[in-house]
C-alpha cells in the first residue's frame, strides 16, 4: 500500500454493505456503467463517486472478507483499489470501454491482493490447490474479527429489517436463524430439516426475494 496517505482523495467510504443498501434506492434502478458514468467519475462528480464507492466497496468487502485477516486489511485494499481505478479513469484516454469498469475494478483488486501477499510475509501463503490460472493467491480463510459493518448497523435499519423478517413464514424464519444467526454447517442444517442442499438454496433464495419485496415496498411507500 504505497499511496495510503492519499486515500482521502476517494469519496468517504461509508463502511457499509448494509447501510448503502438501505441508504439509497439506487438498487431499485438498473445500474449502467456507460460513458456518462465514467465521465462523471473522471470529473469527480460527488454523486457518481458516492455510488461508485458504495457499490464497489460492498463487492470488494464481500470478496475480501474471506481472504484477509483483519477489517483494517480489507479497508486498506479497498482504498488502494479505489485509488488506482480512479487514477486510471482520470488519466488522458481514461477508459475506452466503460462497460468493462466492473471487470477492471476486479482485476485491480486481484493485483493489489497479489502485491499484498507477496509483500507481507506475515500473511498466510496461498494454498496449493488455489494457485491455478489467473486466480490470486488465497490465504487461509481467517475472519474472526467483528465485521467492519457491524458498528454501522443502526437501530432504525434494524427495526425495518425486523419488520421484514417478521413477515416470513415460520419455516423460512427457522432456516434464516440457522443459516444467518447460528451459522451452522449447511450439511447439518439439511440433515436436521430433512432437506437437500438444493432445497436449502431455494429457501434462502425465497427469503431473499421476500426481503427484497418488503424493502422495495417500504422504499416506494416512503
Amino acid at each position, binding site marked *: 500500500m504505497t499511496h495510503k496517505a492519499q486515500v482521502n482523495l476517494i469519496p468517504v467510504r461509508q463502511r457499509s454493505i448494509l447501510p448503502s443498501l438501505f441508504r439509497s434506492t439506487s*438498487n431499485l434502478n438498473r*445500474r449502467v456503467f456507460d460513458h456518462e458514468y465514467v465521465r462523471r467519475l473522471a470529473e469527480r462528480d460527488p454523486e457518481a463517486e458516492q455510488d461508485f464507492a458504495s457499490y464497489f466497496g460492498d463487492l470488494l468487502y464481500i470478496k475480501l472478507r474471506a481472504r484477509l485477516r483483519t477489517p483494517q486489511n480489507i479497508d486498506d485494499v479497498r482504498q488502494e483499489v479505489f485509488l488506482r481505478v480512479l487514477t486510471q479513469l482520470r488519466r488522458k484516454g481514461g477508459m475506452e470501454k466503460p462497460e468493462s469498469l466492473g471487470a477492471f475494478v476486479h482485476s485491480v483488486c486481484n493485483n493489489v491482493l497479489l502485491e499484498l501477499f507477496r509483500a507481507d510475509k506475515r500473511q498466510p501463503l496461498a494454498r496449493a490447490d488455489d494457485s491455478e490460472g489467473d486466480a490470486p493467491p488465497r490465504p487461509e480463510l481467517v475472519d474472526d474479527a467483528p465485521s467492519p459493518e457491524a*458498528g454501522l448497523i443502526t437501530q432504525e435499519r434494524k427495526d425495518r429489517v425486523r419488520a421484514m423478517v417478521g413477515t416470513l413464514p415460520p419455516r423460512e424464519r427457522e432456516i434464516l436463524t440457522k443459516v444467518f444467526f447460528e451459522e451452522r454447517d449447511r450439511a447439518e442444517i439439511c440433515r436436521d430439516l430433512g432437506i437437500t442442499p438444493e432445497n436449502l438454496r431455494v429457501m434462502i433464495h425465497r427469503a431473499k426475494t421476500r426481503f427484497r419485496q418488503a424493502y422495495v415496498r417500504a422504499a416506494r411507500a416512503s
Partner: protein
Amino acid sequence: MGLQGEKSQHRAERYFLGEMAPREQEEFEREMFESPELGEEVRELFALAENAKVVFEEDQALGPAEEPASFVESIAAWFRPSVAWPTAACLASAALIYVSLVSMPGLRNELDALRSPQIVAATVLRPLTRGADNTVTIHESQKLVRLSFDVNATGLYESAHCVVRAAGGEEVFRLAVARQELLDSLEVSFPAGLLSSGRYELELRGVMADGDEELMERYEFTFREQPGS
C-alpha cells in the same frame, strides 16, 4: 423467471454458502463485478444475512415473548376461592422445600465461586455517540461480569456515578466513583446474576464541585448468557 436467472440466483446462494470450489468462486466473483445485476443480487443477499443476524441476535437476547393470556387465565383458575387456601399452602410448602434444598446450596456455591480466583475477560464498551452496538456475552458458569470503558474529561469532576439501567429505565445498580479512580479508563465488575439477558444502558455521570451532575458518557449494550460449554 428464466432459466438463466434461476441459475444465476442459485449461484449467488452457493457463493454465499461457500459451496464453490476456489476456481469457480474466482470466476463467479469476476462475473459479480462485471454484471451489475449479479453484483446487486449478491449485495442484497449479504445485506439480508448481516441484518438478519443482528436482528435474531437481539431477539434472542431479549428472550421469548410474553405468555399468551390463555395461559395466564389457566393459572388464575387455581386461585378461585374454593381452592385458594389449599393452593397457597401447597405453594408455601414448595417454596420452603425450594429454599432449603435448591436455593441455599445454590447461593453457597455462588459465594464459593466469587471467593475463588477466576479469570474474567473484560468487555470493552464503545460509547453511544460513536454508534456502537455492544454485546456482552458470558457463559453460564461465569459468575462475574467485567465492563471496561474510556473516561473523558476526568479533571472536570470531583467524583462520578456509574449507573446501569435496564431497557425499561429501572435502575439495576449504582456505583460511586472517587476522583482518584477517574482515570483514562474504568473497569466495573459485578456479579453476573444482577443482569438477565436483554438490553441495558450504562451511564457515567460526573459530579462537579457545586454538586451538580452531568452526563459524561452513555453506553448501550445487550447482555447475553450462553449455556456453559
